């Protein structure tokens, strides 16, 4: 019985550790500066959970940029500004999605 137990446990632990390592993000866009789209302009979103939140939804919550005026979707959801968060003027002109 002990042999069966430890075989099952070894298998399960290996699966969990392997799974966690395999699904860990390689390059995470969420670590880059985040922007949100408002009125066709991209504005700095600040820190997630501090300046803004993402509610459940199919929209794009925040974007990242490559620095050449191209913006890419990063977080999914509905953007929600936290009162007292960043209220800067747009940093760049509207770019491609």
């Amino acid at each position, binding site marked *: 019985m002990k042999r069966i137990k430890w075989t099952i446990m070894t298998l399960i632990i290996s699966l969990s*550790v392997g799974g*966690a390592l395999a699904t*860990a993000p390689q390059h995470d866009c969420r670590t880059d500066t985040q922007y949100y789209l408002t009125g066709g302009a991209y504005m700095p979103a600040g820190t*997630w959970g501090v300046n803004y939140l*993402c509610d*459940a939804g199919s929209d794009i919550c925040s974007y990242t940029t490559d620095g050449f005026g191209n913006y890419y979707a990063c977080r999914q959801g509905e953007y929600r500004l936290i009162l007292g968060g960043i209220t800067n003027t747009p940093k760049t002109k509207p770019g491609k999605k």
Partner: protein
Amino acid sequence: MFKRQVLQECISALLIMLFLYASLSKFLDFHTFIGEMNNQPLPNSWTPFLVWFIPCSEMLMCIALLFERTRLIGLYASLFFMSLFTIYSLFIVFNFFGRIPCSCGGVIKRLTWNQHIVLNLFFVALSISGIVLQRRKFFKSILITKNSFV
């Protein structure tokens, strides 16, 4: 008897798999996990405590479930935590907090809140089954020990 023991091991193994994967995913992407906690409709002042408490508790439950002596404690703890997560998910689904945050965390983040509830309920049921089987075994062993003294 043998079948029941194998069943018990399988229940513990499934719970260990869930908690180990969940805690490792959080530790491997700790920065994101902090953001995810802040994104939840809970006071942000709780975040420094919760970001350590949740993955460490999950890790401790894995250790408790691994060994025969501490398995019952591990099963009760997993029942408590999974019930708590289910209640929290229900609060989210019924819009108790006024907003629905994204559901996040490893592969599980791809699940919707409703799917989260189904998954949580499955593990609640699994914990209860594990407790029933383990308690029966526990009381049987006490009875055997008592009889050996008579």
